[in-house]
């Protein structure tokens, strides 16, 4: 049986970028994978990501997404650690 693969783009910002070392990476996953499976894969590759404190959210195609979201080829994914834009106040 052939396993078809999809490729997603992972964009890395702030603390994530410093851990991963680049501002984006492309990851291949079996078709039908969920966001959760991608997260586990990245946790394996970059163990420091597991040490992030606060509630890290995730986005798929620039919208907040839940871990059971099924990914498609070309999707843009990002880790969203707690945001702190705006005022220093």
């Amino acid at each position, binding site marked *: 049986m052939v396993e078809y693969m999809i490729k997603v783009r992972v964009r890395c910002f702030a603390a994530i*970028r410093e851990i991963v070392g680049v501002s984006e990476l492309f990851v291949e996953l079996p078709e039908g994978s969920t966001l959760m499976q991608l997260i586990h894969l990245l946790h394996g590759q970059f163990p420091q990501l597991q040490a992030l404190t606060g509630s890290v959210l995730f986005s798929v195609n620039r919208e907040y997404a839940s871990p059971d979201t099924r990914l498609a080829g070309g999707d843009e994914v990002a880790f969203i650690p707690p945001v*702190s*834009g705006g005022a220093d106040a």
Partner: protein
Amino acid sequence: MLDITDQQLSLEPLVNAVKRSSSGAVATFLGVVREQTRGRQVRYLEYDAYREMAILKMRGITDEIRGKWRVDEIAMVHRVGRLQIGEASVAIAVSAPHRREALAACAYAIDRLKEMVPIWKKEVWTDGEEWVGPGRCEHH
């Protein structure tokens, strides 16, 4: 006018962008880099943004505002890159026929921006640095 920029922020262009002939009031908010955070001396801040998503989320905030108050126009610009003490990190301007709507919408805009727009801040102190999430701020 919704933007993420690495240039210095100034209120005047935002005010001019939001004023309509129907506007009786313009409320603005400027977030500024403070000298001290949680008792530590700040050398500078560094802001990073997920630009495309941040602008989408800002647009979402303007939609929320229009659902709540009668306003004329809303402008939000967030700066990224290295910011010195006294420099502005975010500028918001809201125009409305009446002052209460402009003031309420402006306060709402900065609250929501801090909650949900993907922008991050690294504090660089005299003795270290850290990417800061809201959970660790004394005042969020």
